[in-house]
């Protein structure tokens, strides 16, 4: 892990609300593992103050690529950077996915920009396991929240889509599409890797338990330091408190103790509004 000043060598706006940054860094290229993230200083002033975490989307011939959704002030400022600008980046941070080499039916489940680390993961799995059959399930609120379909197609992955409003793919939860495919497969040969909002990951944990399929989920929390010194990102696990930034962001689904929502209907609403 290092703090580096890196050059933006390419910037692509992939929609009104989403853009890609290609960063030049030999160090990040050599050290990044799927599921790890970097923390980016988005302004030169004290507002916004803290760095912002972004998953590593791709490793390129020059460095790494990020895929960022404009969510608020910091991401808005970052979206105004131009090719040739330099930004301060801390990384690679956290523990990535642990690739299950013996499993051939790979199920990747993404909500919104949850595709970010899963693309890097799929790319690595294909390079290491020739027998791997990858199915990618991408869910979003509308078709504007579906990213990276073309990239996954190039990896020869099978793609499944769902949107809450039915504007693209199946209308409803991404988990219902996933369940339809799971029943056709042998649980022993399957592994699920998921990234997205908490209600989705909670649903994946349930599926993992009920279907006896191993699952790894990449969690999100508000981060302050990103390196394990502030204890700001602690979550409850079966082994006590763990830090999303240092012990995660990827965890085995079975080790996470989900907060029981006070109002289950609200949680279901949230699940719909991924």
């Amino acid at each position, binding site marked *: *892990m290092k*703090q580096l000043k890196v050059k933006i060598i390419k910037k692509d706006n992939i929609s009104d609300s989403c853009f890609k940054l290609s960063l030049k860094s030999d160090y990040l290229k050599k050290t990044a593992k799927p599921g790890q993230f970097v923390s980016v*200083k988005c302004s030169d002033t*004290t*507002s*916004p*103050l*803290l*760095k912002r975490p972004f998953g590593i989307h791709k490793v390129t011939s020059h460095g790494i690529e990020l895929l960022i959704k404009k969510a608020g002030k910091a991401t808005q400022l970052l979206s105004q950077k131009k090719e040739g600008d330099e930004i*301060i980046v*801390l990384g690679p941070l956290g523990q990535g996915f642990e690739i299950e080499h013996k499993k051939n039916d790979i199920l990747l489940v993404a909500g919104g920009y949850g595709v970010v680390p899963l693309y890097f993961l799929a790319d690595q799995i294909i390079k290491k396991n020739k027998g791997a059959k990858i199915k990618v399930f991408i869910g979003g609120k509308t078709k504007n929240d579906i990213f990276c379909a073309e990239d996954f197609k190039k990896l020869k992955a099978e793609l499944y889509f769902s949107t809450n409003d039915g504007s693209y793919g199946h209308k409803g939860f991404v988990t219902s599409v996933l369940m339809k495919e799971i029943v056709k497969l042998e649980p022993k040969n399957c592994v699920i890797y998921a990234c997205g909002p908490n209600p989705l990951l909670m649903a994946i944990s349930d599926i993992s338990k009920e279907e006896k399929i191993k699952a790894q989920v990449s969690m999100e*929390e*508000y*981060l*302050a*330091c*990103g*390196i*394990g*010194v*502030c*204890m*700001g*990102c*602690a*979550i409850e696990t079966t082994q006590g*408190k763990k830090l999303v930034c240092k012990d995660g962001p990827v965890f085995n689904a079975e080790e996470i103790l989900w*907060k029981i929502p006070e109002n289950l209907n609200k949680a279901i609403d949230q699940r719909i509004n991924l």
Partner: protein
Amino acid sequence: MSKALEIKIGKLKLQNPVMSASGTFGCGEEINNFFDINKLGAIITKTITMEKRQGNPSARVVETASGMINSIGLEGPGIRNFLKGKKDFLKKLKTHVIVSISATSVEDFKIMTELLDEQSYIKAIELNLSCPNVSHGKTLSKYKLIAQDPKATEKIIKIAKKYTKKTLIAKLSPNVTDITEIAKAAENAGADAISAINTLTAMAVNVEKRRPVLGNIFGGLSGPAIKPVALKMVYDISKKVKVPIIAIGGIISAEDALEFILCGASAVQVGTATFVDPFTGENIVNDLEKYCEEKKIENISSLIGALVV
């Protein structure tokens, strides 16, 4: 390294006046990956408690205008596990190790002080009398925090003083009517130095969800946003007490540190700025050194309280 930055806090001679603020630096292992933390005047550990503590529910941190609110709630392993787990790392450090402690009873303060007193590698103790995210318990004071009550402040410092000869630092809260009253109580009780300030109680609201952002509803505000408040408090305290003041609050640069020194601080602690840039502590040391060289300042202590008003 030149001697221009050397200062004294209690019995300790520090190579420079820059320290880490408790809770923003762990025990230094992570930051040591970025720069040699022996370059700092001292390091202050996360506040240690008697027993293991789980801390508050998530979310525990949120950014606000030029600052952040945290509600960690003193999560930690408890003093015995701390001593077991961190001894090897802390013992090897060449810089001074200061351990921050907090407790909910006089008895626990006593036991913890005794335990730390036995460890020769620990050079000073900072009594955290001011964490806004936990209650110090009804037995100590009718107020939530010890540092809101001059009598309780005095009592705890006297107890600690009785059980250790090490340098004792009292860390005070800005969440009071008159911080100088508490500072005087701390000095009278025998504190060797005063750290100010801890975080200001604060909250953040999510309008869409109509909920507080933090799991604990309330937290403590830190970062550049609180610097002007901290400056005034340090200035006020310096007019009322003789013991050295260690200033804390929104320091991100050597210039910030100098502002506090001019207002009467002998040393400074870097907190939230370490999250923004892990090198902040080292940068401030280097820049202070450069400043003294350029301005031909023989020793930085000549600037303490040198504000012209």
